[in-house]
């Protein structure tokens, strides 16, 4: 598969995965059945299973004072995400630490798992990120209805300052439309941000690896390098470091934005 084909695959509606992962046999086994399972879906389930087992095992071995590296890392995660939720939502944000933390750790794992050989980042597939964004925004609205009640939730769509003045009251239906459109725009921007970053980084990684292979081919013709030396030009390594950074930042941004959207709804009650 060339880079151009990869780039064109982004807007195809087919769910057929690339053929490079180790989990391609799942797709080959199920693609003709009524419920085809692509590589990225299987990897998502694998990551969910691994994270559940990790969380269960960490909780089982909890000690009052951390003695293991695992528990220290888990505590650091919880403290950092709790601080994030409290700073973005306020003191009541502590109740939503589990939601935001789940999103953060899950997306972080999905982003970074693509760096392992034989794996791919499921978040470089648009369906995965669109699903994640819909789930996040749906939970934001669910939380808003739960916290504010149906009436308070609907009042969010009406700008009260406009209602006070008869000259501006006619603008209220317009702002309602704008609010509704902006809710859909939230889903699009959340999903496309994650997808665009991870997919773009994947394409760059792929092209730099191809560049390394091309350099190997050049030198093999020149001085006769035998095949094991095809790993001699790992041009993709600096890009892989960038992928590490971008994967963490994008997971952070996704969870921060979810927290900010929850905070935007809950602020209305304080007014």
């Amino acid at each position, binding site marked *: 598969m060339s880079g151009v084909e990869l780039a064109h695959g*982004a*807007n195809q509606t087919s769910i057929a995965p690339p053929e490079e992962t180790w989990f391609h046999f799942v797709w080959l086994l199920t693609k003709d059945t009524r419920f085809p399972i692509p590589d990225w879906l299987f990897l998502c389930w694998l990551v969910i299973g691994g994270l559940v087992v990790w969380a269960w095992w960490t909780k089982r071995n909890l000690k009052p004072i951390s003695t293991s590296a695992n528990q220290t890392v888990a505590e650091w995660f919880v403290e950092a995400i709790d601080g994030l939720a409290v*700073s*973005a939502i306020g003191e009541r944000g502590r109740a939503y630490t589990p939601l935001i933390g789940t999103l953060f750790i899950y997306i972080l794992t999905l982003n970074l798992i693509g760096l392992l050989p034989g794996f791919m980042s499921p978040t470089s597939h648009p369906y995965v990120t669109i699903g994640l964004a819909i789930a996040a925004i749906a939970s934001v609205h669910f939380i808003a209805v739960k916290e504010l009640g149906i009436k308070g939730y609907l009042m969010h769509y009406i700008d009260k300052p406009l209602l006070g003045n008869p000259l501006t009251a006619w603008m209220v239906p317009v702002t309602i439309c704008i609010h509704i459109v902006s809710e859909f*725009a939230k889903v*699009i*921007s959340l999903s*496309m*941000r994650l997808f*665009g970053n991870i997919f773009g980084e994947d394409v760059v990684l792929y092209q730099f690896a191809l560049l390394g292979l091309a350099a190997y081919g050049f030198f093999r013709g020149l001085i006769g390098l035998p095949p094991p030396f095809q790993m001699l030009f790992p041009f993709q390594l600096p890009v892989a470091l960038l992928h590490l950074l971008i994967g963490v930042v994008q997971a*952070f*941004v996704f969870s*921060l*934005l979810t927290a*900010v959207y929850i905070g935007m709804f809950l602020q209305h009650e304080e007014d």
Partner: protein
Amino acid sequence: MEGNAALYMSIFGAAVAIGLPLAVVFAAHAQARASIAASEAVARQPEAAGHVWRFLILTLVLIESLVIYALVAFFILQAKIRLP
């Protein structure tokens, strides 16, 4: 493909190719200005670094989302390019 259609398609393709980089250029300018302001604020008040950093990330993300709308439009329009 007829002459007019080919001309239309070539102009269309050029517009699709130019639109996204145009959005990226201006968004990069905006993000650079936001980063400058944030680093100046941190240099003036290092104790506020945490708050400034969070606001910076939020601002960068909101600027980036405009580029993402351009990217979505790019994906939609790019699928409409028909090669002769």
